[in-house]
């Protein structure tokens, strides 16, 4: 049946049952009424979720219109199309789920008048004919209510939404879905992505990165160094846990320097919080801090993360403006659109992030050194920059698996306060840093369409997942809270066991689902679209073999210490601020456009050479993004979803044309080759699903050759 498609996040073509819709529609209309919805829908509820009101309605604004039920619970508003329960194997609906916190604006339409609903009670003399829910994630749901005796229900559900939304501002402790609730099999299941909650995960990842000078520290196993830090992290080999504990005390909120990523060329990317200037460390502590920052390199670059990047308030303001601009009824004239877009500054911020990330990748790649990202809180832009740097320099991070692990490691485990930043705990510290990151990734995807294994749809799915209350991934502020919650849910979980080393099977901890369990909310056809068909295996990690690097520890103080700021390196006398002068980073730098930067790119400084060598290739694996005005684009498929008249992106069209041809070929082959060998059978799929063309080509080739031979 048809759901999604134009105007929605996915590109799924209507399937064969689609024509039936029209005829079925009328028959099914009374159905939800006759049934007791709470009983049939209850099984789809999250733990602790209650249905407050429901009414039959018709989704409008897109072709074809879709009839179903609009349900309001204490967590979310959801629209369930008729027949959806029978055809989808996903327990949750991804297209029409609006978490209460996600509702940005609510409008009711009656006749020609349109009322914006703010408070309960503003609806007294008004039976809505249609309700418009504007999501803060730029989605729009228009549901029309049928006339004919159902007005009270429509009224009720509208009131319920208004009320529930007003109450949802208090932080709700969503508990997430547990495995049993999701109706999945028994507990012997590994999470699709390492959640970085066990020491093994960290050790595996460390080995994968070949970071030989580093070890997994268990010092924070009980979250007593910092609740916002993960239980495990990487510290230099030679530093003792006791030294780590002492050194971390001199950083803001105990977030001392840790390894983020080890470049196969030998450089290390570190992140840490600001120096805690009030503390008075002794000589040994300072030495420990310095050793950790130095990480055995003679060349150390301290990057002031906040410099040239927007503040949290800036990000929030830009996002609000962008949302206002992208509303379907925004009053901006067509010919003023560009300056209005510029006025939101959102693209400027995207640009600033890309520029800085590109600079840092150059720093990490050009020489073997230690590069430290330092942000006061170490929980927002540090994560953004370190993830972007890894995306730019490590082909591994550009795979689906790699990207999800990256987000899990640098954002979820590293303690990005998702709940606060996404407005879950009130508006005061709201700032969609993660969404800014996703926009940056989308820009990279646009610029390097062949270098990413995942597609725009995947990014959209991730974008839409941040406020959905089904998993804990994005609904907690710290790893500690996340662990506490899962501990409560599963009373016998050994959350606080030191040396956590049980096999995954039988460990109830693993029953906790994460956002990476995509089959919770997305159908197989949708998940197939997460793959970028244009991903070119020529650039894939296989061909990129990291060369083992000598782990040379340089004894003594580093020979050169630099501060990277305003796109330039300035020498620093010392790494730590406590010795005599106040911290350089204590001075908060506001985001300003770099004055006529340009004339000198960092790469030129770093590699400072005459430019006559002609176009020789970049080192394999490194991407350098464009960040000029004309190159940074608006993520239309995401931000303009609410506008029915703006057609969704066109990126996949050429490829889908080829896919058509491939499936046609496949059809032909199948006709002539009725006998299908067992190995082919395993790869055979439903003809209606969107196929990954590379695979098809592979299959076809294999078959054709087999037949010929």
């Amino acid at each position, binding site marked *: 049946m048809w759901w999604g498609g134009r105007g929605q996040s996915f590109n799924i073509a209507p399937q064969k049952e689609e024509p039936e819709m029209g005829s079925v529609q009328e028959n099914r209309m009374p159905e939800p009424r006759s049934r007791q919805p709470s009983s049939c829908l209850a099984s789809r509820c999250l733990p602790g979720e209650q249905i407050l009101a429901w009414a039959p309605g018709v989704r409008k604004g897109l072709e074809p219109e879709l009839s179903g039920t609009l349900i309001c619970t204490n967590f979310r508003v959801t629209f369930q199309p008729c027949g959806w329960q029978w055809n989808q194997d996903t327990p949750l609906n991804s297209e029409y789920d609006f978490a209460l916190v996600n509702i940005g604006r609510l409008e009711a339409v009656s006749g020609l008048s349109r009322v914006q609903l703010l408070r309960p009670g503003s609806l007294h003399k008004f039976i809505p004919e249609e309700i418009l829910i504007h999501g803060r994630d730029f989605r729009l749901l228009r549901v029309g209510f049928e006339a004919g005796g159902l007005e009270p229900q429509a009224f009720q559900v509208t009131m319920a939404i208004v009320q529930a939304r007003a109450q949802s501002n208090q932080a709700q402790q969503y508990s997430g879905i547990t495995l049993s609730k999701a109706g999945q099999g028994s507990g012997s299941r590994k999470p699709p992505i390492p959640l970085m909650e066990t020491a093994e995960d960290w050790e595996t990842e460390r080995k994968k990165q070949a970071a030989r000078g580093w070890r997994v520290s268990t010092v924070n196993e009980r979250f007593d160094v910092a609740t916002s830090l993960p239980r495990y992290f990487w510290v230099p080999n030679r530093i003792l846990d006791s030294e780590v504990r002492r050194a971390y005390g001199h950083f803001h909120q105990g977030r001392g320097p840790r390894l983020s990523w080890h470049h196969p060329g030998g450089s290390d990317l570190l992140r840490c919080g600001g120096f805690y200037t009030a503390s008075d460390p002794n000589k040994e502590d300072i030495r420990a801090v310095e050793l950790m920052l130095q990480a055995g390199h003679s060349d150390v670059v301290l990057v002031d993360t906040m410099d040239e990047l927007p503040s949290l308030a800036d990000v929030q303001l830009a996002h609000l403006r962008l949302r206002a601009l992208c509303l379907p009824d925004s009053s901006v004239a067509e010919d003023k659109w560009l300056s209005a877009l*510029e006025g939101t500054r959102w693209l400027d911020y995207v640009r600033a992030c890309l520029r800085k990330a590109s600079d840092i990748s150059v720093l990490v790649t050009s020489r073997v050194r230690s590069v430290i990202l330092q942000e006061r809180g170490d929980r927002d832009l540090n994560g953004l920059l370190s993830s972007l740097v890894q995306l730019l320099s490590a082909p591994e991070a550009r795979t689906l698996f790699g990207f999800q692990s990256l987000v899990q490691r640098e954002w979820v485990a590293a303690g990005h306060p998702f709940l606060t930043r996404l407005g879950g705990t009130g508006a005061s510290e709201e700032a969609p840093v993660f969404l800014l990151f996703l926009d940056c990734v989308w820009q990279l995807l646009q610029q390097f369409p062949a270098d990413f294994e995942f597609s725009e749809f995947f990014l959209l799915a991730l974008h839409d997942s941040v406020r959905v209350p089904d998993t804990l991934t994005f609904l907690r502020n710290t790893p500690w809270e996340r662990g506490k919650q899962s501990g409560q849910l599963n009373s016998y979980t050994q959350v606080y066991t030191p040396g956590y080393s049980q096999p995954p099977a039988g460990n109830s901890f693993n029953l906790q689902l994460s956002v990476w369990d995509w089959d919770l909310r997305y159908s197989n056809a949708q998940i197939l679209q997460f793959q970028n068909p244009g991903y070119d295996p020529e650039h894939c990690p296989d061909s990129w073999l990291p060369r083992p690097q000598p782990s040379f520890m340089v004894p003594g103080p580093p020979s050169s210490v630099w501060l990277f700021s305003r796109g330039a390196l300035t020498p620093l006398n010392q790494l730590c601020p406590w010795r005599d002068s106040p911290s350089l980073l204590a001075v908060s730098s506001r985001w300003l456009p770099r004055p006529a930067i340009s004339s000198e790119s960092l790469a030129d400084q770093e590699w400072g050479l005459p430019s006559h060598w002609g176009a020789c290739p970049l080192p394999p694996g490194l991407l350098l993004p*464009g960040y000029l005005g004309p190159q940074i684009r608006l993520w239309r498929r995401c931000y303009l979803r609410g506008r029915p008249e703006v057609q969704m992106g066109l990126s996949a069209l050429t490829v889908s044309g080829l896919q058509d041809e491939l499936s046609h070929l496949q059809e032909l082959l199948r006709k002539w080759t009725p006998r299908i060998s067992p190995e082919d059978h395993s790869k055979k799929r439903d003809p209606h699903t969107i196929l990954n063309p590379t695979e098809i080509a592979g299959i076809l080739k294999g078959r054709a050759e087999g037949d010929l031979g």
Partner: protein
Amino acid sequence: MLGKGVVGGGGGTKAPKPSFVSYVRPEEIHTNEKEVTEKEVTLHLLPGEQLLCEASTVLKYVQEDSCQHGVYGRLVCTDFKIAFLGDDESALDNDETQFKNKVIGENDITLHCVDQIYGVFDEKKKTLFGQLKKYPEKLIIHCKDLRVFQFCLRYTKEEEVKRIVSGIIHHTQAPKLLKRLFLFSYATAAQNNTVTDPKNHTVMFDTLKDWCWELERTKGNMKYKAVSVNEGYKVCERLPAYFVVPTPLPEENVQRFQGHGIPIWCWSCHNGSALLKMSALPKEQDDGILQIQKSFLDGIYKTIHRPPYEVVKTEDLSSNFLSLQEIQTAYSKFKQLFLIDNSTEFWDTDIKWFSLLESSSWLDIIRRCLKKAIEITECMEAQNMNVLLLEENASDLCCLISSLVQLMMDPHCRTRIGFQSLIQKEWVMGGHCFLDRCNHLRQNDKEEVPVFLLFLDCVWQLVHQHPPAFEFTETYLTVLSDSLYIPIFSTFFFNSPHQKDTNMHQRQLSLPLTQSKSSPKRGFFREETDHLIKNLLGKRISKLINSSDELQDNFREFYDSWHSKSTDYHGLLLPHIEGPEIKVWAQRYLRWIPEAQILGGGQVATMSKLLEMMEEVQSLQEKIDERHHSQQAPQAEGPCLLRNSARLSSLFPFALLQRHSSKPVLPTSGWKALGDEDDLAKREDEFVDLGDV
């Protein structure tokens, strides 16, 4: 390095501020001069091309970030182009030669491509024209294809400077006679032997047969007829020798006002409604003449209002629509955003990119054109009305709007051949004054209006929004736009077919649109790149437009309802015209700006992948066919394209010509093996080892 000098400080952290001044030390020049003499770079001349003047020891600046580098060489001016000879051609690798332009080299500027010439006197930039009293130390040339060249003349002998500067200014800026166009010397010298391929050829619309064929194709032959009343340009010189008018129209009417006031057929829709154009009658003061004009027009209108003709809607393009003046102003503002003398300038505009773009209102003009075309499409498609376009000469906006309408409604026009035929029909035969609008003769700057470029930009928006609907790609459009300034093709160098016929006697001349040079691309790149230009995915478009039974009486409804349905690429095609949807034709406008380059990225990254998949599909197809027919067909090797070029830049295929990219290109030495481990720790420069060891 031969013939190359490096100017300014190295790329250290304290590089000097960029400026127009060069700081070459005399001894540097001295050594370089010697080297220059050792090497002879030959000037390639086209048949009929003559060297006019030259100057040696000219320093060509290479756009760079931090400091200004230059290459020494000879600057020559011929009657076809300005060329700089300095680069060692043999240094080009295979890929570069493969995609090299066959006519215009990297450092060649055709005389018609020159837009503005500036001289720098004591660090002040001044426009150069006419007789000069003082000669500049630096020459900056802005090209119409948006390249910018900077030549330093400080080390050139004084007489040579005088000769070359005045030569260049004279040959590019001074008004010229039509007869002096290089086109003619080329045509006489290059007696091309034309091989006509009867299939697959562009319809030229220079015979009665071509028009009849078009009438038949669009099923317009019931109500319209091709007439040969203007054969030999007896009636007027503005109109082509053959054209199409409503069947009942008496031929003597055409002669009354030299073809003015006559509804001329452009195209017929599947539902029978037609697009017509009419040039306005001359403005007269005399009441008597006005009376005659009125009754004449009444007669005309009576003819086309009567059944079988549909209701006629008249669109007056000269009063209620864009003015040519507006287009000219907008484009001259717009192009300044891309004509960049140095990177600092570029970065200054970068911060306010969107508002600058908006203030040029070029994109808004594109939107208005597309909107007008949609309105007309709505009238024809939904309301079944005839539309009569009215313009003073019916040769500017008429051409633009009618071509756009046909492109949206007629899938045939979205094939490459169909598109070329469309340009031939509406623009070349439609009498668009290419000579004046491109100002090829430099006779009147006010007449220079980029109407055709505006059209190509509108088409680009359509191609960009609906790539699978077109057989050609944006690269095709970019190359087509470049061929406006290459005077070996006669297509875009005349004001009317009459002017061309009376001036060109060699009919066998290479035209970009004729069968002998079936695509301008073919003239530009080698044949192997054919795939890139021709969109392989655009399938054979042969179906007729699906008939739509809805009748909407309103543009918005028509537009919305079309966009809310899934697109049929073989049917009616409408562009999006909302604010966020009209974009900058980045390939054309940004291709020469090294900062805008994305190494290993951009569209071409997926393109090569797609081509690879296409090859695979093709080979599978062959295997299937072979199996199916149980025949042994010879294995056709698919063209091996782009295989060996590992990572192309986003500016491909133009970027390969842009050899001096400023984006961090790593030093080859930096990626060499680093020696053994012990050395490594001691070395001050720890370059990361990622090279092939």
